[in-house]
């Protein structure tokens, strides 16, 4: 049961509603970090245009870091409840499952099968 300790004189509503206000400073830092990473990824593209594993990994790694910054700070998951963490993570866990189906494409040529030509 819900119980009320004292008369809500000041404003418990304001306190409740403002439980998860993220300071503005966090958004500014996150935004600057995103712009720096954005510059970095374009710079890396022009500086290392050769298609190597490293250049691909750099481009994607920067994208992942940017996405994590947006999800944690702009979307405030960093300051949210455990349940929100689970929900936010579950979509990306699904992506891992989805992308693991690529193993089918990779492994098809491993065992020669009669009548199947790649």
């Amino acid at each position, binding site marked *: 049961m*819900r119980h*009320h300790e004292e008369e*809500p004189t000041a*404003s*418990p*509503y304001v306190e*409740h*509603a*403002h*439980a*998860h*206000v*993220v300071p*503005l400073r966090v*958004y500014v830092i*996150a*935004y600057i970090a*995103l*712009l720096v990473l*954005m510059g970095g*990824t*374009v710079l890396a*593209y022009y500086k*290392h*245009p*050769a*298609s*190597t594993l490293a*250049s*691909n990994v750099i*481009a*994607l790694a*920067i*994208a992942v870091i*940017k*996405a994590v910054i*947006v*999800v944690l*700070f*702009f*979307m*405030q998951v960093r300051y*949210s*409840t455990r*349940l*929100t963490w689970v*929900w*936010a993570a*579950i*979509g*990306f866990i*699904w*992506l891992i499952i*989805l*992308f693991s*189906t*690529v193993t089918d*494409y990779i492994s098809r040529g491993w065992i020669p099968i009669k009548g199947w030509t790649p």
Partner: protein
Amino acid sequence: MSSEAAEVPRFRPREADEDLGVQYEDMEQQNESYIVGMWTFLVTEIMFFGALFLAYLTYRTLYPSVFMAAHYELDVKLGAINTVVLLTSSFSMAIAVWAAQTKNRAIEIGGLIFTMICACAFLVIKGFEWAAKFEHRLVPGPLYAWPPHGYAGPVVPGNETQMFFCLYFAMTGLHALHVIIGLLVMIVLLVLILKDSPLVRYYMPVEMTGLYWHFVDVVWIFLFPLYYLIPSH
């Protein structure tokens, strides 16, 4: 407006939490329900965008040189500008949510309007990019022609480059559709805020719109390097 809300008959006393729905125990529970509900929707979004990213991965692995050649037809500068525009809109959206939480009406409205301007700018730039593709006959279909005029890259089969543009239009098109939907949601939100509607008195509708908008931003964060920044020779 608080006196008006207090007169509405309720199943239990609402005391100071005038924005607490009757079905919730307290504000924490209500907030969590909002956020988890929105994330459930976003997970379904991740699912169908994920399938498109998988299709992209498959075809890029099958035809790496084709993807390298075809991506030269995309304008890195416009793509980079659009990325900055979208990141900025995400930032202003976060500010609008912050203002909604701290009941700062002017900043809330300003942040929303700025976000909408950024969304429009994104769509206009995207429109120019697409128009150029139509002009160069790079839109998949019967009018598709490869290589385009002035193409100086390596010789690659035309049909496979068409696959690149199929994926490009499908994914950026779906993303642009999300931007348009976000824009419409923000218009509705702005009208309700300007009318002082009780629907948006609590900050959660703005925060929900923010979550959606940041998600759209995250999708573009991946689309940009995957289409515009393919490393090649």
